[in-house]
């Protein structure tokens, strides 16, 4: 089982973000996490990725626990985190080089993932020469090179246009089906949360103690986006969000999209 037990966390000189927080993930699940700005969504991902340390409590990653970074988890950041001075190929192979693999193996794996994600044609391009979608594919390839058991995504598609975003959501869904890893997506977008998550965790203004979890078993296919269930689930999630009184307090940009429908 992956998850956190009685997690306590606060930033230096800040009020608590999580207080005795419990969350259990079944391996292979797809999760969406949604909540207002500052609720601790990204913090939770960074804790799972081993980039932050809890004040107390336990973080479980299939029993694999060690201080510092866990390569068994992969993190994809909102702004991609690509190094601007490295080409797409160098960015993709970065994790493998850090792990100390020999050059031939590094190149072989990196090229495999570049072609898997359809970006082998831009292998020698720098991030500044790539489109938003291509950059995100490079970031995904870089993380997947390390075959993480747990893939954590922090608003990965926030800066993409609507069509590219859908394309990337489809890609990630396809990868999940093929790799059967556990994947957690933090998002601000209600539709994205519903399309992606078998389970949707709703966080509130901190401190968070018990998350609200919405089951969304119908998700998991590309056609779900056009199904009646999808619209009603979005409405349900939106109502839940409004009940929590986030509007006005949060930068809930995408709630506007729902209103227009």
């Amino acid at each position, binding site marked *: 089982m992956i998850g956190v037990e009685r997690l306590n966390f606060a930033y230096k000189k800040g009020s608590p973000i999580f207080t005795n927080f419990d969350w259990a993930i079944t391996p292979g699940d797809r999760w969406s996490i949604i909540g207002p700005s500052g609720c601790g969504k990204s913090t939770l991902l*960074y804790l799972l*990725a*081993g*980039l932050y340390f809890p004040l107390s409590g336990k973080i479980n990653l299939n029993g694999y626990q060690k201080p510092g*970074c*866990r*390569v068994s*988890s*992969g*993190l994809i*950041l909102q*702004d*991609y*985190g*690509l*190094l*601007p*001075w*490295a080409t797409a190929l160098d960015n993709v192979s*970065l*994790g493998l080089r*850090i*792990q100390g693999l020999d050059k031939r193996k590094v190149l072989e794996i990196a090229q495999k993932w570049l072609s898997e994600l359809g970006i082998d044609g831009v292998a020698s*391009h*720098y*991030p*500044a*020469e790539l489109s938003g979608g291509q950059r995100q594919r490079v*970031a995904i390839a*870089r*993380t997947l090179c*390390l075959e993480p058991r747990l893939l954590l995504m922090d608003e990965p598609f926030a800066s993409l246009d609507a069509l590219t975003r859908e394309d990337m959501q489809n890609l990630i869904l396809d990868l999940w089906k093929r790799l059967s890893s556990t994947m957690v997506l933090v998002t601000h977008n209600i539709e994205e949360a519903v399309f992606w998550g078998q389970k949707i965790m709703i966080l509130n203004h901190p401190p968070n103690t018990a998350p609200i979890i919405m089951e969304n078993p119908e998700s998991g296919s590309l056609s779900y986006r056009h199904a009646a269930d999808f619209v009603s689930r979005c409405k349900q999630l939106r109502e839940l969000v409004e009940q929590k009184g986030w509007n006005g307090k949060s930068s809930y940009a995408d709630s506007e999209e729902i209103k227009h429908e």
Partner: protein
Amino acid sequence: MSKKLVGLSVLTITIAWAVAAVIINSSILPTPWKTIHSFIIDLPQGLGWHILVSGWRILVSMAIATAIGVPLGLWLGQNRRWDRFAYPFIYTTYPIPKIALLPVIILFLGIGDSSKIFLISLILFFQVLVIVRDASRNIPSEYVLSLRSLGANKAQILKYVYMPACLPAVLTSLRLNVAIAIAVLYLAESFATNSGLGYYVMDTWQQLAYSRMYAGVLAMSLIGSLAFISLAYLEGRLCRWTQAGKQKQMA
């Protein structure tokens, strides 16, 4: 920058110089061809040696300034506590005209290579230190976070993030300050010494050998241009990514 335009500007300056020399018609402004003639004649007879000495001093000074300035700048940029303590010292010593310390430096280090190298290194060191410190402070934290999430340790973060992020700043700083370094070298070499282009120019000036004096000035300009072009070439080779972004914006 196109090579044709550079060639054209060199040609324009040479023509302007030649026209001025013909109009003034005085030994204090020899023509370019007379200067080049003196340069070629003098090259095996001492000028070559002075070029080597000055070039060596510039090269070693740049290496020392980089070797000390880069790690210290990186360290201060990343350690806010030490930076808070050290930066006021940099802030107060940075504007002091270091050339004024030349007599003091000569008293301590003598008239040989070490006093010149020390002075130029000191001037370049401050430029490199300040620019690297600022560049390293401004590195977006997501680069470090993403590397840590890939399992990188501190040395790997230094290798893959901090060093390449600061490289353009270091090369630009050296390129822009190479002219200052040569100006300082000229002053340092024209004072209590008997080697280097500064000495050669002053010596020929005192002998009223003006075309040879201009040959010395030409040699200093060539060293400056060579250093400038080499650094620009290195910048172009090692920091291609800085141009990649600009080209996309222009497209």
